[in-house]
């Protein structure tokens, strides 16, 4: 049996994502998987610190690996230390769930609005730069375009003395969240992803007819792909970080 434990809430988009893959029966490894959200990185860290791991199971731990957030960093390092003696406990190398979605190979193909959208297009430039900086383990703060984006997004007045102080509290996870929200929540598109919502378009059959909704009056923008639920699950499994768990075969 495998366990997929993450720091987000029990009804989070993260839980919905993993449950969607599990319920789509796309890989044997996910059958009977124990998918559990712990509601915070502290809860997850505390639980793991006293947990007795079963040698017959494999544990996949998803805790945000955020190098520029002191608190998150502490919990990540604590968990890594606590499980270092267990070969069957894998602490995954992932910034956060939002990054997993942003990094999805077909993210733009699926979520791009059909009409030209200046906001989406400008975010797409930032998304590419951000992914490059995370993948190359570089600090986003050195990318002027990303800094400009954050300054605009948080309406930071750079003419003020000490405006940099406001940037202190922006971490790479915040940027992933802001980018994903901005790129998926605009307009009528229902690929919206928030902390507690994985939009229905990620998980349902595409509209068969143009502008016919998958759940009522929402317009699905990838109608032209006419993807069915199972196609979507396979795409998400094969083209996101999720598939990495299959490297560690269940016993």
């Amino acid at each position, binding site marked *: 049996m495998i366990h997929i434990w993450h720091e987000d809430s029990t009804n989070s988009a993260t839980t919905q994502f993993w449950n969607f893959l599990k319920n789509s029966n796309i890989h044997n490894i996910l059958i009977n998987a124990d998918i559990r959200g712990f509601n915070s990185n502290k809860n997850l860290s505390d639980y793991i610190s006293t947990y007795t791991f079963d040698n017959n199971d494999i544990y996949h731990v998803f805790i945000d690996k955020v*190098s*520029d957030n002191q608190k998150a960093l502490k919990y990540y390092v604590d968990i890594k230390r606590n499980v270092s003696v267990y070969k069957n406990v894998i602490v995954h190398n992932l910034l956060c769930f939002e990054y997993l979605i942003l990094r999805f190979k077909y993210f733009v193909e699926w979520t791009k609005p059909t009409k030209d959208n200046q906001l989406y297009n400008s975010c797409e430039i930032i998304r590419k730069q951000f992914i490059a*900086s995370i993948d190359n383990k*570089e*600090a986003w*703060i*050195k990318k002027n375009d990303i800094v400009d984006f954050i300054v605009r997004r948080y309406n930071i007045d750079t003419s003020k003395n*000490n405006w940099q*102080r406001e940037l*202190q509290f922006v971490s790479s996870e915040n940027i992933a969240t802001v980018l994903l929200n901005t790129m998926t929540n605009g307009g009528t598109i229902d690929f919206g992803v928030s902390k507690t919502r994985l939009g229905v378009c990620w998980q349902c059959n595409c509209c068969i007819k143009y502008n016919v909704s998958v759940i009522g009056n929402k317009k699905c923008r990838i109608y032209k792909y006419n993807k069915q639920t199972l196609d979507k699950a396979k795409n998400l499994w094969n083209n996101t970080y999720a598939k990495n768990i299959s490297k560690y075969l269940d016993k």
Partner: protein
Amino acid sequence: MLKQYKTSGNGVDFDLIFHDALTIINGESGVGKTVLFKALENDSILGNLDAICLNYDDITSGIIDITLKSAQNKIIIIDNADIILTDEQRFRISTDQDNQYIIFAHSIQGMHPSEKSIAELLVKNNKGKLNYVLL
């Protein structure tokens, strides 16, 4: 960029590897961070290491600000950064593309380190090295 440096102090041989232009060194109290800073400072004074070392004694002189604003292609080593750096100075360090920083600090706040920047000092059997916890 300085990628490796060897030095010694108080009977400990340090073999330091750097992966980024910003390295923030943490470590448990008493592990030898102050010893390492002193060793680097001594090497700098002796001319063995081309670096500017800043610590608590430099707060009032204004040298920290002057250094951060004017240094080019330098290695800047800062002890007790939690106490001596202002928010503005932290931001300057995090965005500086011209210099290399080796910073002793418990907190990363305001310096936006990458995964390659975060190191802890480990000393065992009088051998000291940097362990990169996120790599």
